């Protein structure tokens, strides 16, 4: 697809997102906070509404028509996810409350696998959600918490990993894409290193799933997790994919209904996968509506999304450099549509406030990655992040609004 055809195709998408067609403070909304959460297409919103209008019943009980219908729709999403991720088995897909919940679940069920003196590795680039749970686990088990440093250009220091990451490593957890910088990390290399060391490999895909296809078989990691709301789906829903043999072996996370096989006063046996990890009534409407996000991404094509977002990123990066004192972080080739920057002498929060007044929504601050900013010698940045529905005109509006803000602040 050439660039004009692609732009044209993407331009039509915006009309499917009602939240984008509004004004804030009397100005058209330019939504560039997509790395925090994406807006939802009408079909996802309709699906949630339809669920409560027609299908609401508790699932997996099967005593009546509605229960069967909602169970079927719920499980259809699991099947769609297994297909999306190229999983071998659909029961490898576990529904959670989000990426943070998925990591907390993993750091709990892997607890008995970690012994005193073992090493738990993360990278300096991690979101706090994939950093703190592992740090706490290491403390609890008297294990050694280690990290792969980040270079000033916003990439992993793989040379360090090659030297230091050895067979003491028990768990290696890292993000596929940096939420603060947009860097697409060389995960194949780190997975190979971690696998050679005999460690469990946990990949945080929260910032990846909305931009490119993932094949869990090909990637050869052990666990992969992400949130529905970062790929045009509902909030409060996450996915954890794990190798079946591992999930079968590891203990349950939360105890309660649904996850049991048999309960008696003398003892309880646990249900098979995936129910072993899905205690209690789940976020049914979100799971059902999520199938619409999955098909939306498939129909638009993640390769188209990425190509389009990347062209917006390139245009925005070039225009940004026209502004005196602009500092772009991770100005790399291998990135998703995330532009993280500062203007010398101006606080990111001030820029965010004035952009907001002009209808431009961005994120400012540390983006829940304080170790990363400490490495870069600052406390945070302005982050503009693009999604498939953003347009080149919005890039222009953003740059114009930014220039105006900078002029006011200087």
């Amino acid at each position, binding site marked *: 697809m050439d660039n004009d055809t692609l732009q044209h195709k993407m331009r039509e998408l915006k009309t499917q997102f009602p939240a984008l067609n509004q004004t804030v*403070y009397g100005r058209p909304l330019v939504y560039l906070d997509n790395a925090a959460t994406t807006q939802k297409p009408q079909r996802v919103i309709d699906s949630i509404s339809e669920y409560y209008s027609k299908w609401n019943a508790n699932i997996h009980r099967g005593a009546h028509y509605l229960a069967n219908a909602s169970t079927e729709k719920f499980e259809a999403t699991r099947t769609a996810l297994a297909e999306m991720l190229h999983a071998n088995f659909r029961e490898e897909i576990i529904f959670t409350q989000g990426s943070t919940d998925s990591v907390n679940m993993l750091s709990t069920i892997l607890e008995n696998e970690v012994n005193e003196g073992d090493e738990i590795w993360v990278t300096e680039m991690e979101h706090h959600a994939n950093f703190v749970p592992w740090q706490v686990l290491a403390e609890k088990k008297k294990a050694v918490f280690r990290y792969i440093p980040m270079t000033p250009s916003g990439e992993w220091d793989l040379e360090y990993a090659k030297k230091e990451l050895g067979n003491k490593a028990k768990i290696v957890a890292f993000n596929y894409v940096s939420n603060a910088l947009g860097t697409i990390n060389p995960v194949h290399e780190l997975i190979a290193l971690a696998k050679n060391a005999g460690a469990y490999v946990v990949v945080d895909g929260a910032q990846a799933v909305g931009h490119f296809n993932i094949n869990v078989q090909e990637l050869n990691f052990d666990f992969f997790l992400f949130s529905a709301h970062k790929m045009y789906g509902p909030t409060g829903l996450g996915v954890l994919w794990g190798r079946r043999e591992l999930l079968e072996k590891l203990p349950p996370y939360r105890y309660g209904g649904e996850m049991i096989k048999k309960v008696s006063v003398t003892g309880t046996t646990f249900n098979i996968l995936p129910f072993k990890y899905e205690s209690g009534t789940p976020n049914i409407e979100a799971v059902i509506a999520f199938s619409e996000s999955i098909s939306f991404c498939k129909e638009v094509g993640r390769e188209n999304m990425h190509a389009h977002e990347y062209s917006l990123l390139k245009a925005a990066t070039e225009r940004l450099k026209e502004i005196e004192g602009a500092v772009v972080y991770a100005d790399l080739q291998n990135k998703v549509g995330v532009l993280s920057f500062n203007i010398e002498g*101006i*606080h*990111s*929060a*001030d820029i*965010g*406030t*004035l952009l907001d*007044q002009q209808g431009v929504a961005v994120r*400012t*601050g540390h983006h829940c990655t304080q170790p990363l900013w400490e490495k870069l010698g600052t406390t*945070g940045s302005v982050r503009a992040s693009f999604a498939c529905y953003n347009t080149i005109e919005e890039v222009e509006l953003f740059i114009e609004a930014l220039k*105006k803000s900078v002029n*006011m*602040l200087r």
Partner: protein
Amino acid sequence: MIEQKQQEIIEEFAFFEEWMHKYEHIIELGKEMKGLTDDEKKDDLLVAGCQSKVWLKASLQENGTVNLEADSDAIITRGLVALVVSVFDNETPQDILNANIHFMNDIGLVSNLSQTRSNGLAAMVKQILLYATVFQAQQKSN
């Protein structure tokens, strides 16, 4: 007095029809404020800060009123901090504790002060009230 100062601020801001002018004024106030020295901007004076930081220094003066000095690393927050300081500065602990602070909402810059965690203003006001409580207790014990 606190109420009168708030009314003056509200009237001052009523002149600005454009958001830009309102913010330009806030930025100006931020630039004009004396603020704290770098030595004073240490963690023990830090009241809060998720995105921008706010430092606050308070002392009880001989005439029984409270002296306030403050600062922020972001200029817009600094301007808002200057407004908060101007309202409470040189007032007695009793008057500070009795005050109904409403000017932030009225000038349309902070839609809900208590929920605005990110710029540290809510924490600053809370800290001022805390100081006032302590100073009032000191005055009574003297």
